[in-house]
């Protein structure tokens, strides 16, 4: 019984949250990794693109809610998601046309594109705040839990509860689907291969009859899909706040890079590495230890490796260590 | 001069070098031939310290040099060129040459601030030398051109030029000839012979042009599938059945050529 309790505690406080968070990061990292893989630059505007997509979705969710549309028990936001994606894709195509294309034609160095994306980030940042403001917004509805902690305790008679949120479930499922789909798309389909070819050797891609503009368009659209989905799912699970989305950029990049830039599988692995290292290494093992160990050995202290102050430091330290042994990430990423 | 003992280099499960042992005698011009993918470039890269060997040892004279980084080997007098040209593309052709010599006093930060005149002197000498090399390679008109803008063959010449900027002991040339005009290649061949005779350079060169090999090299080593297939004088090697089967082929032209070179 105690073993079970320990296991449930671990599941509830470490494994489920870390998996969900890891999936959120992975979904964001997929977008970053895709742009890096095909267009060959680190897109700093990705966090704010997520915010933009989520914002549009939220506005439409509110409209739907007002109209009484719903797909309960699932959140209404899923209904508005396609619209959000459409807007975001449109926005990104326009950005490409007005901004990125110029540098592409010039064959500008990646670092220039990085700076340009920083400029785009500032602009999006302003637009989102002007439209929806800086406050936190709630837009989730539908059934919040798949399993509630209290219900679980009652059901099983254990001391420890187990909670599993709908948003967590959704995120995990969507992420897995997205990774597989993207991997399949890039490696198996004609368009996907032409995108990889374009990223590998642009001139030669031209000689093979690949239309570069089409490749770029498809890339932005895919990125819009990923960004909006990631933004909405994150917002459903936590809350929507523009500043947080900007802050998300850092762990997202960390995930994409530690997994190996340009590789979808790397993005997901990276997301979990970051999430689990954050959660596990600062976890206080006291509770679990108390359940598992005989009473005489039960710990007095927290059995915590490092205090939570160092959560980020620890996850970054892990990242650096991984990179020292695998200099281009877990999945042999690209580097320009 | 260089001795390679039982060298293995594995990429994953693939054995690019599979127990190759070769010896390059001091003062020789040794040729290295073999079919595509035989492991010649890999062997070069291991000797030059670019790739770590899976197992096996490399000696220079009596000194073991296995796994030494390339820049240390350079200072021991071991130079190499790349099969796929590695020019400094955003620098001018002349700068490409002038950066080569080691131990320039201008490479120390302190001197760049407080010993300007010393640097100026050295630079003038280097410049002169670089211009001589460029003239020799017939690309002196391109001295101020960005190296990235050179034609494929010109880049190859530049590669060779870099080895001429310093007093090397042994020079590894990975297919200098590929893409170089045959007339110019003759001149390069002459230069190699001259460097060999006058300055005592030892050469080891990979080539697929049998005329060139036949004219310059003694001995010739033929590799196949990561192993040494045969060693000997150029003429013998070119008549060797195994070499013909694996490498030269029975195409009439090559037979004729090999014969001509041998004869």
């Amino acid at each position: 019984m105690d073993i079970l309790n320990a296991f449930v505690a671990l599941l509830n406080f470490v494994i489920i949250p870390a998996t969900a968070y890891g999936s959120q990061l992975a979904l964001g990292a997929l977008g970053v990794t895709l742009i890096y893989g095909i267009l060959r630059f680190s897109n700093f505007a990705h966090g704010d693109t997520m915010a933009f997509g989520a914002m549009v979705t939220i506005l439409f969710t509110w409209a739907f809610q007002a109209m009484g549309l719903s797909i309960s028990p699932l959140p209404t936001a899923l209904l508005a998601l396609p619209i959000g994606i459409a807007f975001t894709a449109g926005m990104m195509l326009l950005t490409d046309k007005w901004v990125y294309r110029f540098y592409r034609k010039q064959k500008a160095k990646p670092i220039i594109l990085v700076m340009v994306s920083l400029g785009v980030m500032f602009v999006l940042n302003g637009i989102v705040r002007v439209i929806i403001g800086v406050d936190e917004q709630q837009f989730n509805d539908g059934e919040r839990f798949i399993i509630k902690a209290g219900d679980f305790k009652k059901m099983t008679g254990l001391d420890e509860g187990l909670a599993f949120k709908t948003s967590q479930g959704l995120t995990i499922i969507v992420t897995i689907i997205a990774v597989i789909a993207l991997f399949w798309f890039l490696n198996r389909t004609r368009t996907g291969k032409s995108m990889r070819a374009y990223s590998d050797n642009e001139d030669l891609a031209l000689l093979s009859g690949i239309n570069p503009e089409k490749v770029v368009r498809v890339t932005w659209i895919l990125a819009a899909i990923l960004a909006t989905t990631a933004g909405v799912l994150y917002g459903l699970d936590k809350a929507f706040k523009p500043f947080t989305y900007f802050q998300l950029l850092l762990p997202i990049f960390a995930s994409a890079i530690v997994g190996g830039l340009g590789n979808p599988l790397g993005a997901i692995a990276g997301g979990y590495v970051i999430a689990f290292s954050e959660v596990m290494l600062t976890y206080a093992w006291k509770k679990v230890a108390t359940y598992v160990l005989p009473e005489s050995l039960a710990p007095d202290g927290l059995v915590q490796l490092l205090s939570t102050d160092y959560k980020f430091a620890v996850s970054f330290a892990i990242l650096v260590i991984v990179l020292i042994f695998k200099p281009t990430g877990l999945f042999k990423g690209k580097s320009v | 001069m260089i001795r390679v003992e039982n060298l293995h280099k594995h990429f994953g499960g693939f054995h690019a070098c599979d127990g190759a042992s070769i010896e390059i005698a001091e003062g020789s011009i040794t040729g290295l031939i073999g079919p595509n993918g035989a492991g010649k470039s890999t062997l070069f890269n291991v000797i030059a310290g670019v790739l770590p060997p899976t197992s096996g040892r490399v000696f220079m004279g009596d000194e073991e040099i296995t796994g030494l980084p390339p820049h240390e080997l350079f200072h021991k007098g071991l130079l190499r060129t790349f099969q796929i040209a590695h020019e400094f593309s955003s620098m001018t052709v002349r700068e490409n040459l002038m950066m080569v010599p080691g131990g320039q006093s201008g490479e120390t930060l302190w001197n760049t601030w407080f010993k300007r005149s010393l640097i100026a002197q050295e630079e003038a000498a280097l410049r002169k030398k670089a211009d001589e090399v460029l003239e020799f390679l017939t690309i002196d008109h391109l001295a101020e051109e960005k190296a990235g803008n050179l034609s494929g063959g010109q880049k190859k010449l530049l590669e060779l030029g870099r080895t001429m900027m310093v007093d090397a002991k042994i020079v590894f040339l990975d297919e200098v000839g590929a893409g170089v005009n045959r007339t110019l290649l003759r001149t390069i061949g002459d230069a190699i012979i001259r460097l060999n005779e006058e300055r005592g350079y030892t050469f080891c060169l990979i080539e697929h042009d049998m005329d060139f090999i036949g004219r310059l090299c003694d001995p010739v080593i033929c590799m196949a599938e990561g192993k040494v297939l045969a060693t000997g004088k150029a003429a013998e090697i070119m008549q060797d059945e195994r070499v013909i089967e694996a490498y030269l082929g029975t195409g009439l032209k090559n037979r004729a050529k090999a014969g001509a070179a041998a004869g």
Partner: protein
Amino acid sequence: EDIKLGVLLGFTGPIESMAVNMGAGAELAIQEVSESGALLDGSTVTPVRGDSTCIDAAAATAAAERLITSDGVKGIVGAACSGVTGAVLQNVARPNGMVMISPSATSPALSTAEDDGLFFRTPPSDARQGVVMAEILNEKGVGEVALTYTNNDYGKGLADSFQAAFEGLGGTVTIVAAHEDDKADYSAEVGALASAGGEVLVVAGYADRGGAGIVRASIDTGAFETFHFPDGMVSDATVEKFGSEVDGSAGQLPGSDSPGAEKFAEVVGDAFDPTSIFAGESYDAAALIMLAMQAAGSSDPKVYKDKVMDVANGPGEPILPGELAKGLEILAGGGEIDYVGATAVEFIGGGESAGNFREVVVQDGKFETVGYR
């Protein structure tokens, strides 16, 4: 005369969402005074906003420099965030002899900063709140708490003083875990807090930032059910988000049983959320500057700085929000006032708020006042 007042708050950056209502609060007071026409023979007052960014001391000082030397403001409401406030005070306000009244810099360190009598703040120092919070919990019979704080001078200062006070009263703090605001995920913190356990989780954070994230995750995972909220968490944002999920939790925030807060809500109407954190303090900060000007009969900060204490404290007629005109008239007539304002301002030595606290509990998804101390 058209008097300009600087409103130097963190309009972009980490506290941008708080700054919206703070700015509105300050500007409400300014508008009220300006429209009354009672200040210094009918002077009008115009707010000039500056962005202190909360985190970038250089940008904040530059903005302050611009407000003072270019826009010619006569007083500054701000800055927000103790770090940049200190920098602005030392590098711009003191050299220029400018009065600053901060509505939100609560770090204890500012109490001892050299200020030439130019710096005031309307909220109490965190050191005081920690003690009050410890007393409240102790009286409730809570013996064991887990504590998380937002990792800045506010959170850390509060956590330090609370922990010392609570342990002094015989309580146990099972764990003290910092959290950074606006981060993507708080599972790690909640995991550690849950493992350490405790009857109540004290969340020394912000209602629309990391604090909310911690509470959310704690409720969802069933780690904690009751919380204790210091001022940063006692806001409508908390009950909007969690409603009756946090029923039974308690908290305290600066305030007294004066009717100021209610009156403030009335004055604000639905222009913005009157209970949002530091909105009232901002109103009071702006009001105090203008009242002090009136009392001194001058808009020169070097002159009116000495009057700030006088108008803030008794004796005199108590002045509530919405009554600024009345206060101005009394002062014009040579009378004395005791500005109470939205947050029952009472200054003690060093120009900071004495610290009256309102104790609240959450009932049926609403904060209900249960007493004052």
